C-alpha cells in the first residue's frame, strides 16, 4: 500500500517535471517545463540583467532589460517571462542584445527624475559625500562626519578656511533661500577634531614596504601623501621652504588662513606618519638620487615657471606651462616619476589641487601595487537639473525651513547646536540607494546616456514622506509594478495600484489614502524589492 502511494507520487512528479532541453549561449541544459530562460541561464551561471523580475511574484516583463535573442528567429524576448522551449537556442549577450538593453536603459533614464548623487557632491572636485556629512552632523555624530570627510579630503580644516565652496553654488537649497553652509560645517567637524587630543587618523592598509617621495608640500602634494600613506606607502614630503603649505603660505590675506590652523593640520599629517623634509631643494641631480632611494617620485612643485623653476629633465607640455603627462594619467617621460597639481596645469582652487593629489595617489597606488593603470572611476550619475518652484515644497519635506546661519568667519565657526540646525537644512538630494539601485548599476555597466532620449519637459518631482519606514519618490519609479504585485500577493488591504496607462501611468494609492495605510505590512519588502530609489527605507 505504502509503495503504491510512493509510486503514484513519483509518477505525478515526473509528469509535472517534464524536462525541456535547450541551449543558452551554446551550453546545453535541461529544465522543468515552465522554467523561464532567465532562471535557466542562472543555473548555467549566466547572469542576465533584469530589474522588474522577482522570483515568486508577477511575471509581467516590463523593463525589457533581460532581453535575449532567439538564435533561429532572430527575435528578442524578455527572458524573465519567456519560457524554456524544446530545442530553443538562446543568445544572452551579443551586440544586438546589448544595444537593446542600452536603449531600454536610456529610455527609462529619460523619464527617471532623480539624482544618484546630490548636486553639491558632483560639484565638489574632491567628490566629498556632503549630504551624508550633513546627516551625520544633524544626528550629532560629528566624529563620524569628520571620518567621512577625510575619506576624500586630506586637509578639511584648511579647506574650511580657504575653499571657494563650489558645492554651495550647486546646493539645491540655494534656489529656495540660501545654500547650506557646507564649508562651515566641514570646518566645524575638522576644527573639533583638530582641537581634540586624539585627532582622527584613518586606518592604514597593510604596509607595502614601498617608499614614495613627494616634491612639494602644497595642497596637491599633501593630499597625495595623505592618501598614499593610507594605502600603505611610506611617504616623505620634500619642500624648499622652511614650512609646509606651499601656496597656502603666500596667501595674500593671511587673516583668511591663520598660520596656526595650517600648522595644526600639518601636525595631524605628521602624526599620521608622513615624513617632512623641509628646506630641501630638489633639482634634476638630487632627483636621480631620489629615484634610487624611493619606489616612486611625485612632483607636486606647484605652478611651473619656465624661467625660475627646475624642469627635472622632464618633457614639458606644448605651451611650456607644465610637465607633459598622458591625458588623465600622472605619468611623465621618466619611469616612476609622476606629477600632479599645478605642476601639470595651474589650479586656482585649493580643492582642485587637493583632488588632483588624491587622484594621483589612487593612480600611483594601483600602479605600484598591481601594475594597473587605473584612474578614479565615477559611477553613472542620474541628474535632473534645477528644481522648479513647484518642487520646493517636496524637497523641504525632509529639511527644516529655517534660513541659513553663517558664523563669523574670524571666529571658530559654528557652535555645536548651531551646526546641527544648519545641517538639518540639507534637502537630501542624494538617492537613498546609490549603491543598490539596479538602474544605476546597469546604466553604468552598459554605458547608457541619460540625455540620449530626453526631449520636452520633465515630470515634476514628488516625494511621499508620510510613511514611518519608507519614502516614495514617484518620478524615480520605472513602472515595473513589483510593489503592486507584492501588495496584492501579500493581501494589503489598501495596497498600491497602477493609475492611468501609457506614458502617464504611475504607481499610486487607491482613493488617495495615505502611504502609511497603503503599506501596512509590506513597506520594507517593497523598499527592498524596488529596483530603483523610488521606494526606499527612510533611514
Amino acid at each position, binding site marked *: 500500500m505504502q509503495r503504491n502511494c510512493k509510486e503514484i507520487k513519483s509518477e505525478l512528479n515526473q509528469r509535472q517535471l517534464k524536462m525541456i532541453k535547450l541551449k543558452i549561449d551554446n551550453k546545453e541544459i535541461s529544465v522543468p517545463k515552465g522554467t523561464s530562460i532567465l532562471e535557466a541561464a542562472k543555473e548555467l551561471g549566466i547572469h542576465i540583467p533584469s530589474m522588474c523580475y522577482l522570483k515568486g511574484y508577477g511575471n*509581467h516583463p516590463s523593463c525589457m532589460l533581460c532581453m535575449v535573442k532567439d538564435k533561429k528567429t532572430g527575435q528578442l524576448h524578455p527572458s524573465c517571462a*519567456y519560457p524554456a522551449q524544446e530545442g530553443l537556442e538562446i543568445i544572452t549577450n551579443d551586440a544586438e542584445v546589448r544595444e537593446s538593453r542600452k536603449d531600454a536603459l536610456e529610455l527609462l533614464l529619460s523619464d527617471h527624475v532623480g539624482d544618484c548623487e546630490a548636486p553639491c557632491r558632483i560639484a565638489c572636485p574632491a567628490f566629498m559625500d556632503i549630504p551624508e556629512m550633513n546627516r551625520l552632523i544633524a544626528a550629532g555624530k560629528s566624529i563620524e562626519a569628520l571620518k567621512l570627510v577625510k575619506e576624500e579630503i586630506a586637509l578639511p580644516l584648511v579647506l574650511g578656511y580657504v575653499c571657494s565652496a563650489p558645492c554651495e553654488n550647486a546646493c539645491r537649497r540655494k534656489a529656495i533661500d540660501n545654500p547650506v553652509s557646507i564649508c562651515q560645517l566641514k570646518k566645524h567637524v575638522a576644527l573639533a577634531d583638530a582641537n581634540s587630543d586624539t585627532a582622527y587618523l584613518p586606518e592604514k592598509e597593510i604596509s607595502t614596504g614601498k617608499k614614495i617621495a613627494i616634491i612639494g608640500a602644497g595642497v596637491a602634494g599633501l593630499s597625495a601623501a595623505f592618501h598614499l600613506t593610507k594605502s600603505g606607502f611610506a611617504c616623505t614630503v620634500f619642500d624648499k621652504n622652511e614650512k609646509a603649505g606651499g601656496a597656502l603660505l603666500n596667501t595674500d590675506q593671511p587673516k583668511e588662513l591663520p598660520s596656526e590652523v595650517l600648522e595644526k593640520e600639518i601636525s595631524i599629517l605628521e602624526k599620521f606618519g608622513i615624513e617632512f623634509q623641509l628646506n630641501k631643494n630638489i633639482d634634476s641631480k638630487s632627483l636621480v638620487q631620489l629615484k634610487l632611494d624611493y619606489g616612486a617620485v611625485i612632483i607636486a612643485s606647484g605652478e611651473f615657471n619656465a624661467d625660475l623653476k627646475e624642469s627635472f629633465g622632464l618633457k614639458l607640455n606644448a605651451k611650456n606651462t607644465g610637465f607633459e603627462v598622458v591625458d588623465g594619467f600622472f605619468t611623465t617621460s621618466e619611469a616612476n616619476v609622476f606629477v600632479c597639481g599645478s605642476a601639470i596645469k595651474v589650479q586656482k582652487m585649493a580643492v582642485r589641487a587637493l583632488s588632483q593629489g588624491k587622484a594621483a595617489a589612487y593612480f600611483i597606488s594601483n600602479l605600484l601595487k598591481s601594475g594597473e593603470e587605473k584612474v578614479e572611476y565615477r559611477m553613472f550619475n542620474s541628474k535632473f537639473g534645477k528644481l522648479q518652484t513647484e518642487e520646493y515644497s517636496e524637497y523641504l519635506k525632509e529639511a527644516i525651513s529655517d534660513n541659513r546661519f553663517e558664523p563669523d568667519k574670524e571666529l571658530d565657526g559654528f557652535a555645536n547646536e548651531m551646526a546641527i540646525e544648519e545641517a538639518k537644512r540639507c534637502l537630501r538630494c542624494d538617492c537613498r540607494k546609490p549603491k543598490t539601485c539596479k538602474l544605476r548599476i546597469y546604466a553604468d555597466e552598459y554605458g547608457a546616456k541619460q540625455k540620449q532620449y530626453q*526631449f520636452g519637459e520633465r515630470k515634476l518631482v514628488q516625494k511621499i514622506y508620510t510613511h514611518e519606514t519608507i519614502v516614495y519618490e514617484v518620478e524615480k519609479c520605472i513602472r515595473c509594478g513589483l510593489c503592486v504585485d507584492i501588495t496584492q500577493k501579500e493581501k494589503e488591504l489598501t495596497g498600491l495600484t497602477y493609475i492611468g*496607462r501609457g*506614458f502617464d501611468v504611475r504607481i499610486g494609492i*487607491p482613493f488617495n489614502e495615505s502611504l502609511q495605510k497603503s503599506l501596512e505590512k509590506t513597506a520594507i519588502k517593497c523598499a527592498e524589492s524596488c529596483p530603483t530609489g523610488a521606494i526606499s527605507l527612510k533611514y
Partner: protein
Amino acid sequence: MSQKIINKVDQIITEIGSSVNHAIPILQAIQNEFKYLPEVALKRVAETTDISASRLTGISTFYSQFRHSPVGEHIIKVCIGTACHVKGATQVYDAFKRELKIEGASDTDTDKLFTVEKVACLGCCTIAPVVQIDEVTYGHVTTEKVGDIIKDFKSKDKKLATKVSNIKKTNSAVQGEIRIGLGSCCVASGSKEVKEALESTLNSSQINVDVKHVGCVGICNQVPMLEVHKPDEKTTFYTKIKPDEVSQIIYHHFKSEKPIEKIKAKLLSSFEDYVISDLPKSIKRYNSDEKSSPISEFIDSQVSIATEFRGEINPSDIDEYINLGGFDGLRKCINEYSPQQIIDIVNESGLQGRGGGGFKSGIKWQLVKDAHAEKKYVICNGDEGDPGAFMDRMLLESYPYRVIEGVLIAGLAVGASKGYFYIRAEYPLAVTRIKEGIEICKQKGMLENNILGSDFSFDMEVFEGAGAFVCGEETALIASIEGNRGLPKMRPPYPAESGLWEKPTLINNTETFSLVSWIIKNGAEGFSAIGTAKSKGTKVFALAGKINRGGLIEVPMGVTIRSIIEDIGGGIPNGKKFKAVQIGGPSGGCIPAELMDTPIDFDSLKEVGAMMGSGGLIVLDETDCMVDIAKYFLSFTQDQSCGRCTFCRVGTKRMLQILEKISSGKGIMDDLDKLEKLAYQTKKGSICGLGKTAPNPVLSTLKYFRHEYEAHIKGKCPTGKCLDIIKYEIEDSCIGCTKCAQRCPVDAIKSEPYEIHSIDNELCVKCDICRQICPVDAVKIV
C-alpha cells in the same frame, strides 16, 4: 446624495454580480447612471464586493471610457479618427472649446452644459469630420460652422423629445416596399430623420407600403438612401435625400388611400416630368439596371461573402436570415461533419485571421481542439479600435446572425461550450443587435442546450469593452474580460493553450467568424477559388479619406490599390492628385502613389511596409502632409499604449516628441536617425502587437517620404498642414470686406473697410476660419 448613490450601487451589484470579473460591467453601469464614477460609489463597490480598492482604481483609470469627474449635461464628441483628422478634426475640436470658452485642460464649460471630448473614431469616416452631441451627429463639420452647430443642437434638443413615430397599419393592399439602411453611419448622415419623415408621410397619407430597415448598404457616400421596390417597376434608388424630400418620392411611386391625398397624388403624377426635375438638386435617382451609375460602379467590383445580402436583409430578422440559407452551415456541421472535418474545411479554405495578423485560422482552431480541458471558450473580437475602421461594427450591426453562426460553428469544431462577444462600448447598436440576436437564437433553439436537436450545447454572452485600443490584442482582451487592466501577456502560452481563465480559448476577429458559414456552405474550394495563391477569399475595407465614393467595401484578395481607388472609389475629389493610401491604421503604413498597383494581400502589403491590419483604408491626396500622418498615428498608439513595456511606454512617447520637434520646424537631421533607431528598437522590444507595429506608420513614411521630413527640418511643411510651422497671410487680392476680421475668434486680423487686411501671426490660432470664408480666396497658408 451619497446615500442615494450607495443605494444605486448596491442595486447594480445585485443585478450584475460581485466577483472580480464583474468589475468592468459594474463600473459601466455606475457611469451610465451618474455619467461619471463618483468616489463614494467606487468605495462602496470595494467594500461590498470581491473587487479590491487597488483593482478598482487600476481598472477605472486604465480604460478611457471611465470618467472620474462630473460632466456637462451634453457631451460633444469630436471624432479624431483618421478620416476626420485629415479633414481638420483637431481644429474643429479647438473651435468647440473656443466657442464654449473652455480653457486649458478643462473640458466642460462654466455652465456645465457641454463637455467636449475627443473620441478615437465614431466610424462615420465617409462624412468626416464628424461631431456627435449626445445622440445627434453632425457630418462635414468645419471650424466655421461650430457656432451654428451648437445653436442647432440647442434648438433640436427640445424638438427631439416630442418626436413620435410608428406606422399605423391600414387594411388596404400593400403597394410595395421601401428599404432604408440604418447602419450607424447612415444614421449619422441623417437616415433616421429620413426614416421618420417616411413613416409620418406614410401614416398621414395612409399609403400601405412595407418599410424595411436594412443594415449598412456600404454606399456610405450616397446616404441617406431609399430603395423603392414595386412589383411592376424597376427598383429605384434615391440617394442623398433630405427629410423634406421624402414625401415627393413617396407620392411619385405610390397612391394614397385618402381621397384628398389621391387628388394630390394625381396632380403630382400628371406632372411627373415637372416633379422629377423639381426634385431638389441634391437628390439623385438611379434605376437598378443602370450600368454606369455611381452605385453600380461602387458595387460591381466587389464580392460579398461577409456582407452577403447587403442592403437586402433586415439585420434583426432571423427568419429572413434562415430563409436566405442562414444556419445551413451550422446544420451541415452538426449533421454531416465531425469537428475535425470542420477544421479541415477551414484549413483547406486557406482562411486567415482578418484582425490584422493573418494567422491561419485552421491551425488556430486545431490548437484549441487539441488542447485538453474540461472547458474551452470562443471569443469574437469586436474591439475594433483603429481610427478609420468600422468593418466589424458594420458586420455586427448588419449581420448579427452570421457572426453568431460563425462563432457557433467554431465552438462546435473546437469543443467549446461558451462564447463571448467582446464589443467596443462605442458601438451601442452593434451591442444591441448581438444581444438581441442571442436572445432570439435562444428562443429558436440555436443556442444553449441541444442546439438544433443535437447534443451540442453552447452559450453566449456580450462583454462591452471600455475604451482601450490595446484590448484588441487577444491577451489584453482576455485580461479585460477577467476583470483586469487590459495588459497584454507574454506568449507563449498562447490563448489556444491557456486563455480565458487559463482555459484553451479560440479568439478570432469578427470578420473571420462572419466568413465561416459561407465557407461551410460553399466548401473550401469555393472560398479558396477567390483571391490569390497565398491569400484566400475576400477582405472588407473601410474606404475613406480623400476619395469620391467612400464606404464599406468587400473585395477579393489580390485586387490592386489602383482598382479600389479608381474603380470602386471613383478617384480623388476636387481634381487633386493621389498621394498615398494608409492601410492598416496605426499598425499599418502608407503606400505611395507609385506603388498603386500593389495587390492587396497579406504578403504584398508586408513587403511594401504596410499591413493588412483590420481594414482601414484612408486615401490621402497631395494636400496631406506625411509627417503629420505619422505623427497622428503615433500619437494615437502612444496614447493607447498600456504602459508596460519600456519601449512602448517611453519609446513611442520619445518618437512622438521627435516628430513634434520636426513638425514644428525645430528638428535636426540627427533626429531622423534617432527616430528610425527608436522605431526599430520599439518593434523589437515590445511584447504585444501594439508596440511591435506602432512604429510602422513612421517607418513607412520615412521610407517613402523622407524628403518631406527633411523639408520640415529645413523649416517648411510642403503641404501647409503642420500648424506650428505655417503662417496665414492675406494677399493683395483682398477686397477689404472685413468678413474674416469679424469672424476671427482671437482678433488677429487688422482690417479697415475696402483696404487690404493683415493677420497678426503672433495672435493667430490657425483655426482656418478666415481662409474658409474669404469670398475671394485671398487668405493663404505660407
